[in-house]
């Protein structure tokens, strides 16, 4: 293992995070606070408790997931796309570092960044609502698994994208709708029967549900299914990454 190489990539990526600390931290915290004000305080006061949880508290896990997903994809995607775009990727490709190590560096940094932001949002939410975490271990496990697997997805998009537009397209057109329709802000039991069935095909539902379970002990789908879904998604992303490096897809000519 070329640990120095992994550390070099990891540190480089983290440096970008701290260089733009305002953008990295302040903006997700601000937008989440706005969600709390609008959905939690203003609208939420008119919504009854869901499964024994106040609406303001109910949306906390979904909000964290929303941000962690977006941040993981964005950070990992940008992290690998930018060197490809400006041409500095040659150095990584010519270094004695394996594709696995490259992924650990980029994806690891992106996942750590988004988890940090997720935890900051969790901290922020304590100012707005009353929440307790019933299963802290599972909460962290879900956070890590989600951050890593969506950072892998972002990494794939970063290698695939040929332009900044393409890089932003998938998160915008696919991921954001999936997150909003994945029960981030409601329980799918509130939906008509048909839409409940449709929702079961949305992978994000399993994440949000499992994550919410770790907070409140209630969930839309069984916790085991949530875990299985995340692991399945992570291994699918891993396979695609492996294939990309194996064939040199859009990295080598």
């Amino acid at each position: 293992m070329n640990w120095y190489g992994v550390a070099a990539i990891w540190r480089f990526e983290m440096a970008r995070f701290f260089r733009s600390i305002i953008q990295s931290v302040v903006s997700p915290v601000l937008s989440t606070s706005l969600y709390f004000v609008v959905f939690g305080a203003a609208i939420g006061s008119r919504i009854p408790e869901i499964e024994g949880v106040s609406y303001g508290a109910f949306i906390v896990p979904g909000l964290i997931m929303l941000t962690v997903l977006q941040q993981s994809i964005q950070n990992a995607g940008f992290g690998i796309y930018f060197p490809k775009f400006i041409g500095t990727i040659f150095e990584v490709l010519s270094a004695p570092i394996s594709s696995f190590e490259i992924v650990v560096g980029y994806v690891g940094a992106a996942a750590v960044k988004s988890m940090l932001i997720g935890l900051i949002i969790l901290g922020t939410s304590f100012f707005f609502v009353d929440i307790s975490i019933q299963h802290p271990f599972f909460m962290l496990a879900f956070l890590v698994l989600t951050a890593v697997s969506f950072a892998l997805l972002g990494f794939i998009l970063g290698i695939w994208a040929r332009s900044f537009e393409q890089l932003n397209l998938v998160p915008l057109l696919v991921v954001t709708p999936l997150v909003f329709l994945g029960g981030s802000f409601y329980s799918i039991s509130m939906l008509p029967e048909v839409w409940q069935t449709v929702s079961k095909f949305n992978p994000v539902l399993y994440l949000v549900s499992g994550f919410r379970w770790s907070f409140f002990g209630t969930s839309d789908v069984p916790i085991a299914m949530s875990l299985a879904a995340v692991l399945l998604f992570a291994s699918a992303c891993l396979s695609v990454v492996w294939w990309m490096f194996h064939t040199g897809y859009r990295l080598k000519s």
Partner: protein
Amino acid sequence: MSTVVQVEGLTKTYDGGFEALKNVSLDIKEGEILALLGPNGAGKTTLISTICGITSPTSGRITVGGHDVEKNWRAARDLIGLVPQEINLEPFEFVGNTVRFSRGLFGKPRNDAFVDQVLSDLSLLDKRDARTSQLSGGMRRRVLIAKALAHEPRILFLDEPTAGVDVELRRDMWALVERLRADGVTIILTTHYIEEAEAIADRIGVINSGELLLVEEKDALMQRLGRKELTIELSQPIKEIPETLKEFNLTIGDANTLTYVYDATGERTGITRLLGALQEAGLTLADLQTHQSSLEEIFVGLVQEDAA
């Protein structure tokens, strides 16, 4: 001298079907400076990129330090430093950081003293805490060299290190290459300029349209490439070369011109003696012109020789 890089029957066909390298074989000796000379699009960068692992070969075999670059890539790449043709640098990064990054990427523990030494060798130490975007083009090229040297490579590839670089920096670059060679580093550089190859290389390889036309010791090659022509325009037409001028390598051009071919790198060009002899033969000169074969002409010559 032992062989440190061995290329055997290397062919590279790009995705579009373009054959950029055609069955190239090349042995690079340890500690030598090899210049690859060739016009735009000859395949110099492709050759270097394939050795360094950035481009995958279509067929053929490459070893670096005895390690196959595909099977034993880690050991092979440990030995290599690469300075690319394009100046690609992270714009927001500090000079010192980016050089440290390269060292880490190549699996070497942090060593700030060494990084400072490399920066100072390249007259960049005072720029260590500047952002790369604040540097001039020549400085950025030197940062790229510093990055390539940060992990103490044994083999250094310089892809057109002096393109767009002023005379002074070019001399600095040559001096640096000399110093590295003194440390036993093998250096492969590409260039369009014969003079550059002449100034620093031990051996010169000429590459054109994906084919390595020849690899020769510089001194032998310079003799072949150093041919110059003197065109002598006479006041009167001439039909035959006078007896007294037969010893010179003269040919009659159209009507009233004579062409004298000589070796410009030789001790004596024979020009003075020739001019004297012309006068003695009673010929009056209207004009004189010298002409050195351009790189293109030399390539054409080599390609024709190659085909013959």
